[in-house]
C-alpha cells in the first residue's frame, strides 16, 4: 500500500463527472474549418509558415518553432488555407488577432510520418528534439513546452509523476483517455523514464475514477512497462495541481521560487505522456486531443477525440447542440476556466473541457459583499497563503506588502473564491494585482536601463570635455615652444 501525504487546505467539490464520463467517448468528425491563432507564449505574434491559397496536409507545420519556448503548430487535417484573418483569440483577454483559417477538404491526406518503436537506442537529447518538433506542450491546461520541461539541467531527477488526478469538476478527458488508451499512457511513462533516466514512475489517478484504475492495472499486467506505481489519490480539489500532487505523492514541497525539478521530480499530465508516445512511435505530431463537452447547456455531454483547431460550435453540434437553458460558454473547468464571447473560437492544445453552462449552473448573480474577515479563505488555500490579507492589500495597491504575502505563489485555483461567504471575486483581484506587479517590474527595469544610459552619456561628455581641454593645453604648449627664441641665437 502506497502511503500518501496531505496538503493543507483544499475543498471537496461536487464532481459532476458522471454526465460526461458515462457516455461513450466518440471521435469527432472532421470540422468544416480549422482555426489556428498566431499567438505565442509571451504574447507576441507568431509568424505563419503558410500563405493564402496554399494546400496543407495533415501533420504539416503551419506555424514554425520560435526557440524552445514556442514549439511548432501543425495542421490537424488537410485543406486549403483561406487566409490570415482577424478573429477572436481563445484567451481570457478576449482580444482579436491574426489566425490561420483553413478550409477543410475532407480528404484527411497526411504528410509522411516516421516513428520508431525502438526508442531505447536513441539518445534522450534526440528524443527531446523530436518532441519539440512534434509541437508537444503540457496538455493539463498550462501548455508549457514539454521539451523544455523534460530538460531539467542542472537538477538531478529521481521520480517521474504522471498526473491523472483530474480534480476539477466536470472535466473527464483524462478519465476517458485512461480508459480507452491505457497502453499509450503506460508506453509514454516508459518513454519518459528513458528520457529522464529515472526508474520510478508514480501514476496518480483520481479516486473517483475506479474504472480507469482497473483498466490501467490490467494494461500494466499485459505489457513490460517497468517500475510504474498506479496510485489512487483523494478527490479533493486541487489535488491535481502540480505542487499539491507532488506533496501528496512524495511528501516533498516545491520551494517558493523553485520548480519541481529542483527537488528531483518531474510531473507530466497523462495526456502529454500519451502524446509523446504517439509522436515517437508513430511520428504523428500533436494534432488531436480528447476534450470534454459537458454542462446542462449541451444536449449530450460526452468526451470527444477532436482535432486541434476545430471550432467549438461544431463540437457542440456533434453533441446534439445547445439546450434551452444554455447560459454561458466556458473554456476549461468551472474553477480555472474562462468565459468565451462566441462559439466560433477554436479549441487549442490547452483546451481540456468546454463547459456549456446552463441556467444557474456555474454562474451565480450574487453581489460581492464586504469582507467579514472570517478567515475561511485561509483555511481553504492549498498553498497556505492568506487570501484575506492579499485581498486587502490588492485593493489598496500595496505592491510591496503583496510580495511579502507571497502573491506570486498563488496558483489561482479558486478555492478561496468558492468558500467566501461574501462572494468576493478574490481570484480576479489577485490576477489583476499580479499583472500590476509585473508591469511595475518592467517599468523598473526600463528605468534602470535609462539611468545607465544617462550616466554613460554624462561620463562620455565629461571625458570629451577633458580630452578637449587636454588637447587644447598640448596645442598651447607646442605653440609656445615653437615661438620660443632658441638659445644661442643672440639678439637680432
Amino acid at each position, binding site marked *: 500500500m502506497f502511503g500518501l501525504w496531505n496538503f493543507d487546505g483544499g475543498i471537496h467539490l461536487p464532481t459532476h463527472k458522471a454526465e460526461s464520463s458515462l457516455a461513450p467517448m466518440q471521435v469527432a468528425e472532421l470540422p468544416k474549418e480549422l482555426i489556428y491563432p498566431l499567438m505565442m507564449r509571451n504574447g507576441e505574434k507568431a509568424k505563419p509558415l503558410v500563405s493564402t491559397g496554399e494546400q496543407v496536409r495533415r501533420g504539416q507545420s503551419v506555424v514554425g518553432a520560435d526557440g524552445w519556448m514556442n514549439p511548432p503548430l501543425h495542421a490537424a487535417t488537410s485543406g486549403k488555407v483561406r487566409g490570415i484573418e482577424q478573429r477572436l483569440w481563445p484567451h481570457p483577454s478576449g482580444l482579436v488577432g491574426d489566425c490561420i483559417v483553413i478550409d477543410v477538404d475532407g480528404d484527411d491526406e497526411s504528410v509522411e510520418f516516421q516513428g520508431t518503436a525502438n526508442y531505447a537506442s536513441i539518445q534522450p537529447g534526440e528524443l527531446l528534439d523530436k518532441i519539440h518538433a512534434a509541437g508537444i506542450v503540457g496538455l493539463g491546461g498550462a501548455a508549457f513546452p514539454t521539451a523544455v520541461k523534460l530538460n531539467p539541467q542542472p537538477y538531478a531527477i529521481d521520480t517521474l509523476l504522471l498526473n491523472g488526478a483530474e480534480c476539477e469538476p466536470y472535466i473527464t478527458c483524462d478519465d476517458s483517455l485512461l480508459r480507452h488508451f491505457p497502453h499509450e499512457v503506460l508506453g509514454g511513462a516508459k518513454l519518459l523514464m528513458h528520457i529522464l533516466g529515472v526508474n520510478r514512475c508514480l501514476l496518480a489517478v483520481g479516486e473517483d475514477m475506479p474504472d480507469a484504475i482497473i483498466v490501467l492495472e490490467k494494461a500494466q499486467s499485459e505489457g513490460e512497462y517497468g517500475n510504474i506505481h498506479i496510485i489512487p489519490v483523494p478527490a479533493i480539489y486541487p489535488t491535481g495541481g502540480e505542487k499539491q500532487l507532488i506533496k501528496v505523492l512524495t511528501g516533498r514541497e516545491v520551494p517558493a521560487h523553485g520548480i519541481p525539478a529542483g527537488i528531483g521530480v518531474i510531473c507530466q499530465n497523462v495526456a502529454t505522456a500519451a502524446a509523446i508516445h504517439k509522436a515517437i512511435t508513430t511520428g504523428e505530431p500533436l494534432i488531436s486531443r480528447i476534450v470534454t463537452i459537458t454542462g446542462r447547456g449541451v444536449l449530450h455531454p460526452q468526451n470527444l477525440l477532436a482535432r486541434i483547431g476545430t471550432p467549438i460550435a461544431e463540437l457542440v453540434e456533434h453533441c446534439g447542440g445547445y439546450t434551452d437553458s444554455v447560459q454561458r460558454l466556458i473554456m476549461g473547468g468551472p474553477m480555472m476556466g474562462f468565459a468565451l464571447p462566441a462559439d466560433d473560437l477554436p479549441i487549442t492544445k490547452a483546451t481540456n473541457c468546454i463547459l456549456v453552462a446552463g441556467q444557474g449552473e456555474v454562474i451565480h448573480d450574487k453581489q460581492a459583499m464586504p469582507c467579514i474577515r472570517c478567515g475561511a479563505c485561509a483555511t481553504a488555500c492549498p498553498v497556505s497563503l492568506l487570501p484575506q490579507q492579499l485581498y486587502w492589500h490588492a485593493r489598496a*495597491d*500595496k505592491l*510591496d506588502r503583496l510580495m511579502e504575502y507571497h502573491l506570486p505563489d498563488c496558483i489561482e485555483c479558486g478555492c478561496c473564491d468558492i468558500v467566501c461567504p461574501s462572494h468576493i471575486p478574490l481570484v480576479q483581484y489577485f490576477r489583476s494585482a499580479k499583472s500590476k506587479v509585473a508591469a*511595475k517590474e518592467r*517599468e523598473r527595469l*526600463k*528605468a*534602470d*536601463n*535609462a*539611468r545607465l*544610459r*544617462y550616466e*554613460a*552619456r554624462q561620463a562620455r561628455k565629461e571625458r570629451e570635455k577633458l580630452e578637449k581641454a587636454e588637447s587644447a593645453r598640448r596645442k598651447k604648449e607646442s605653440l609656445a615652444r615653437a615661438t620660443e627664441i632658441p638659445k644661442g641665437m643672440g639678439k637680432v
Partner: protein
Amino acid sequence: MLTFVVLCVVFAFFGLILGYASIRFKVDGDPLADKIDALLPQTQCGQCLYPGCRPYAEAIANGKADINQCPPGGEEGVKALADLLGLEAKPLDPELGSEKPHRVAVIDEKKCIGCTLCIQACPVDAILGAQKLMHTVIASECTGCDLCLPPCPVDCIMMEAL
C-alpha cells in the same frame, strides 16, 4: 561658583564625546538619494524643475523638494515615494504637468535634415544618426521625455503613444 565649574566640566566632557562620535560615524555619499533615485522613472526630462532625476532625488533627500513634482512617475510614483519616506501621498503638482500615457518619439524621415541637434539633446542617447545622415529614434530606449522636440529646426519629431 562650584555649580558653574562643575557644569562646564561635565558639559565639555559631553561635547567631546559628541565630537568624537561625529567623526567616527561619518557617512560617505548620499545613500538616501540613491534609494529615492531608484524609484524615479529616469526620463531626465526636467519637468520637476531640476536638471535630471538624480538632482531631484538629492533635493528630496535634503528636504528641499516635494515628492509630487514628477509627472512621468505619475500618482504611482508619488505613492511609492510617500511609502518609502513615510509621508502622506499627495496629488501631482498640476503646474508642472500631468501624467501622460507612455509615448515615444518618432522622426519623420522625409523632413529630417541631419542636423544632429536632437541627438545632442537626448539624455539617454536614444537617437541614432550622424551629420547629414538620417536620424532615427531607437524606440525601445526612448523614455518619452520630450527634450528632442524643441531643438529640431524643421519640427520633424512627433510623440506617438505605443
